[in-house]
């Protein structure tokens, strides 16, 4: 496992910046948001995987540009807030902005093409996202949102597993150099 991670790390100069077909980022983000909201009414299982979060992680890591990452995270997060009926606008926005920024920063330093790297990266950013979300809710909303729980652990593992498949599918949107 250590060797797998080591093979994933490359120097910053050698990291490749991926580009996507025009409109594909916006389209994917929009579809995942709609899908997330659509699946939400079919039960709690649909909330296990935060599809917009996975999209933010993927594009931020792929673009490897912090500005693009944070703006994408902010846009998707606020859109997600807008689609939820009781979340104040900015709650998910703050969390996904930070995820987008740090994911792009991390993506600029390590190779995230390997499925295991993507699994670990998604797992970690899932919990980072949750910590930021819980912190914001505790400070601003006075709500005792947990930073970590068994449910969250399971969700993070499922999301990480889904991300491996999803990221591979999204790789097809890349433009070849």
């Amino acid at each position, binding site marked *: 496992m250590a060797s797998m991670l080591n093979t994933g790390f490359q120097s910053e100069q050698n990291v490749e910046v991926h580009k996507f077909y025009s409109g594909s980022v916006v389209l994917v983000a929009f579809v995942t948001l709609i899908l997330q909201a659509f699946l939400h009414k079919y039960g709690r299982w649909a909330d296990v995987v935060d599809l917009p979060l996975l999209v933010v992680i993927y594009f931020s890591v792929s673009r490897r540009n*912090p500005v693009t990452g*944070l703006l994408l995270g902010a846009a998707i997060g606020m859109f997600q807030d807008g689609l939820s009926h009781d979340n104040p606008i900015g709650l998910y926005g703050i969390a996904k*902005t930070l995820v987008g920024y740090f994911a792009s920063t991390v993506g600029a330093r390590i190779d995230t093409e390997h499925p295991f790297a993507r699994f670990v990266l998604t797992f970690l950013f899932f919990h980072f996202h949750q910590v930021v979300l819980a912190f914001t809710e505790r400070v601003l909303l006075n709500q005792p949102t947990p930073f970590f729980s068994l449910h969250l652990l399971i969700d993070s593992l499922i999301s990480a597993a889904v991300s491996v498949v999803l990221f591979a599918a999204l790789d097809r949107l890349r433009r070849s150099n």
Partner: protein
Amino acid sequence: MIDAISRHRSLALLAGVILAQVLLLAYQIRRAHDVRLIRYWSVQASAPAARSGTWFFSHLGGFWSGYVGLRNAHAENEQLREQVGQLELRNRELESQAAEAHRLEVLFDFRSAHPEAQMLAAQVIEASADPASETVLINRGDHDRVKRNMAVITPDGIVGKIVEVFPDDSQVMLMTDKNMGVGAMFADTRTHGVVKGTSDPQPLMDYIVNDEKVSAGQTIITSGEDRIFPKGLLVGVVASAKDGNPFQKILVRPAARLDRLEDVIVLVTQQELAPARPGQSFTVSPAPPAPVQATAPPLNTGAAAAAASSQPSVKAPQPGGAAK
């Protein structure tokens, strides 16, 4: 600063976006009492500065008014003192006018109560310079058809008589003058006598025999026998009485305040005045009679009226006698 922002453009943008969203959240979130969080934060952020500013300016204002403002306090104090002096002077003027109005009101009431008698209101304008002479000068004279021996009274009681008439003024001899005599009698016993001046504040009622029972506080009125004062005017009350030889020595407290005369009435005729109605009073400044113990034992009344003829201005109290 700008260079640092340019170098860390992405970090600055991140901070800006996060801050914007935090503010957006704060705008939406409502805390207790339905107060938006952003308003709560704004108040919390500005309150210390506002409190400090308020404290500073209030203390600065207190310093200004408490210390710097003292520079004007002295001038203001002087101005207020002057104002107080003017107000006190004005107050005294008003009090004097009010007292004068009251006196005139009493005179008017007295005049209204006796429409049958012709009388002139007059003001005392001067007193005698001679301590032994109990006379005053009034502002009515020959032009007002004032004649000698006209009676001068106040609503409280008799004052004296006209002794000299000038074109515009007249001299009044007070009943306390040593040359003055008034035909008088006790209001209750109707015993006649003569009230003679002694140049003292309290004249003497003479020709009352020692057998006559006289007590302090007895009222003395004019008898009309002197042909100057109409019958029934108040002369005064008995201050003290004691046996004498051959008559009692009775001191009389004049009803009129002779020591503070200001407005008087000159009776043009000697027509008897109608008695005052019950409850009617013309007293300006009543002087309560002193509780003097009568010292004279009751003696028999005597014919003392004849002795009154010794007084230069009083005819002997004989019925129908002529005035001087």
